[in-house]
């Protein structure tokens, strides 16, 4: 049996994976910021966690996840509310990948430098 995955299906899977990943980070982020209520002592002491090399790389993955989910979401909305958009949905997807690349590469460079 042969199964060829279409670009739209890959985008659909990525939309789920990035959505779940960003939601998981959101919960972690609400928790870590809640520690600020205990004053500067605890909060500043725990910041080493976010400044670690490994977390700086995770942060770039977070940007990739948020950016893809946002752009792909806009594409979904366009197809849902603008019937003609279904006719060139592949072009929309390529446009989305182009926008993602143009925004992601310079931002990732700035974050890791």
């Amino acid at each position, binding site marked *: 049996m042969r199964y060829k995955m279409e670009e739209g299906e890959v985008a659909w899977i990525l939309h789920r994976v990035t959505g779940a990943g960003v939601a998981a980070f959101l919960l972690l982020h609400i928790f870590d910021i809640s520690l600020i209520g205990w004053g500067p002592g605890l909060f500043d002491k725990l910041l080493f966690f976010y400044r670690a090399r490994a977390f700086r790389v995770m942060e770039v993955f977070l940007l990739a996840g948020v950016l893809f989910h946002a752009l792909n979401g806009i594409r*979904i909305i366009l197809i849902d509310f603008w019937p003609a958009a279904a006719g060139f949905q592949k072009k929309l997807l390529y446009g989305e990948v182009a926008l993602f690349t143009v925004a992601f590469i310079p931002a990732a460079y700035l974050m890791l430098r």
Partner: protein
Amino acid sequence: MESEIVRRPKASERFETYSWLYMRVSGPLLMLMALTHFGIMHLYYGVGHIDFTVVAARYRTPFWRIYDLVMVLLAVTHGMNGAKMILDDYLHPRGWRTAVLCLVWAIGFIFLVMGGFTILTFGVK
């Protein structure tokens, strides 16, 4: 047959429509708010420079508190609604679905309260 087509949608079906629409309203708002937030915190300040003082300075203006409050509300509800959509696709046994759905909304509610409490009580003694 015809009455079947033009019948009024049941309450649960109306909820599904609102849930669908909510993702499409909160999504673009979150795109603007979260990417602005990300740009300010990660590109303008940079994680290496954010500490208690930076957050305290931001929360001296009510603008950023309201901004963060709206963003937390939109993000948690958008995320939990997304989790529900994934559950709808993969978890079919009725009892399990209800149980996991309750858990998802309980977690969402707890983190919503946690986030709101942090933002509203910071620096208020």
